[in-house]
């Protein structure tokens, strides 16, 4: 008779209060299998998209996700530009790059805050989100909104960056850089955090390739892929930057990748601002010819991929959306195996999942032993306390 029990667990993501959506199958304290059940966030973007015109679709896909809300419109407009065979003019391209990298900075700071919350370091959470506010203020200044910036349109960008706005952007970047440096040193030097995060939720390189994972999840396992370098778009071909790769595949490696990437992003933004070319910010597109196009961009979580098929009218025939979390979350099945329940929350969070992106949709439930998201957090915090006692 098997000693296995089923632990249906709630969302570790504090933002989602839906009931359970992972089923951990455990023997004793070790997780031996994971079932993922989605569906709570499914809104039907691919169904709605063919009803809208090409200039309306960026507004729709922006609302796939609130955190990576620039990446989806960017990939969409790149797909449309791919069909038409045009590129954004240099100034528009640089502005798009600046907005995209600013999003990466704010998204990684958000993740650092949440990761801190999961392991019980709530000060990290408060500080990371406090200094993220400076970036959101910059967004409001240059695009008009803190989130959902609508900065992309087929052919270029909607709004220009004015010269008088640049000092504030640079000031916000300085703050973000200083605070990220503080958080990075705190994370890399703290023996408790290292003991808590190292060798947890390991995803090997072979597994990463088999599941085709993306972004920091892939780069943390030694799988060296980054769309900005592999197929540069906009300003990426002209601005040098490093792609951060770690080999260990554990949660600590993924945290390192995200923190160090933030510095690279800040560098890219500074360089773009100093080299911002003059000229128009958008190329005119009169009509979209029949054909198909693929647009992909490197979102904070990995490659976001959009495919569009056009029949010559001003609405697409088919619009396929694939967010990075779709590939990354599936890999959790192998990453949580062999770990403890307390580590499960952390492992599931380490891929920086965006459920709204994955499902353009979402999660589920079961009967017996119920552990909610709060219980998981508590278990995670308890483990951190136990580790602290060793030091």
């Amino acid at each position, binding site marked *: 008779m098997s000693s296995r029990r089923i632990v249906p667990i709630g969302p570790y993501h504090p933002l989602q209060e839906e009931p359970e959506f992972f089923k951990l199958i455990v023997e004793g304290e070790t997780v031996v299998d994971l079932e993922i059940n989605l569906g709570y966030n499914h809104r039907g973007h691919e169904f709605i998209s063919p009803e809208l015109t090409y200039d309306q679709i960026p507004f729709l896909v922006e609302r796939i996700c609130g955190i990576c809300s620039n990446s989806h419109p960017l990939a969409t407009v790149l797909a449309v530009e791919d069909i038409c*065979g045009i590129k954004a003019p240099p100034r528009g391209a640089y502005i798009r790059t600046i907005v995209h990298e600013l999003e990466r900075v704010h998204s990684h700071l958000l993740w650092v805050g949440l990761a801190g919350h999961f392991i019980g370091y709530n000060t990290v959470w408060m500080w990371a989100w406090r200094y993220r506010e400076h970036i959101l203020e910059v967004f409001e200044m240059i695009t008009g909104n803190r989130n959902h910036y609508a900065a992309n349109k087929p052919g270029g960008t909607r709004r220009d960056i004015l010269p008088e706005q640049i000092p504030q952007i640079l000031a916000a970047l300085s703050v973000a850089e200083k605070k990220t440096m503080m958080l990075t040193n705190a994370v890399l030097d703290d023996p408790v955090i290292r003991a808590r995060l190292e060798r947890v939720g390991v995803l090997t390189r072979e597994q990463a390739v*088999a599941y*085709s994972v993306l972004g920091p999840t892939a780069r943390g396992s030694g799988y060296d892929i980054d769309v900005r370098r*592999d*197929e540069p778009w906009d300003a990426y071909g002209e601005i040098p930057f490093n792609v951060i790769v770690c080999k260990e595949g554990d949660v600590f490696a993924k945290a390192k990748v995200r923190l160090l990437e933030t510095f690279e992003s800040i560098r890219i933004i500074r360089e773009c601002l100093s080299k911002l070319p003059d000229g128009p910010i958008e190329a005119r597109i009169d009509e979209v010819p029949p054909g198909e196009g693929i647009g992909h961009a490197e979102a904070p979580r990995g490659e976001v*991929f959009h495919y569009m098929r056009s029949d010559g009218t001003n609405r697409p025939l088919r619009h*396929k959306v694939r967010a990075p979390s779709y590939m990354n979350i599936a890999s959790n099945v192998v990453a949580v195996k062999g770990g403890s329940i307390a580590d499960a929350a952390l492992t599931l969070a380490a891929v920086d999942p965006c459920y709204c992106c994955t499902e353009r949709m979402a999660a589920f439930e079961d009967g017996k032993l119920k552990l909610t998201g709060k219980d998981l957090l508590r278990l995670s915090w308890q483990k951190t306390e136990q580790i602290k006692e060793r030091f």
Partner: protein
Amino acid sequence: MREAEAGLKQRVPEAEVFEHNPRRLYIRIPRERLTEAAKFLHRERGMRLAICTGIDTREGFEVLYHFSEDTTGTMYTLKVLAPKDDPRVDSQAPWFPAADWIEREMHELLGIDFPGHPNMIPLLTSDTDWDKSKYPLRRDYERRNEAHEQ
């Protein structure tokens, strides 16, 4: 000609390659040759599966497998066509975990079968409040307008 293109044509002579631009290749192959072509691109050429797209077209159900050659920044899209009265494409999930979820999604939203899939259960739609015989991404799905009540 690119190495990958040449290798593919050698294994699947019926492949028709359309080059939209140097970074975007669309390769039409018969659906029986899909597994062989996909294994070649992933295992021998080291390409990553970005995602699959299912489309309901006049000619039948098109399933596109988008492979990314990250070393060169080129997308190789394999296209197979399944007739409307036999919407069936061999599942790649048994050997390729990356294809698992997307095949489930294409099955539930388009009604394409993937024989050989190890776990063909719905991925996204509701388990309690959804008519499984309806496929929203098919062209004949009845769309409601704003005035139509639930």
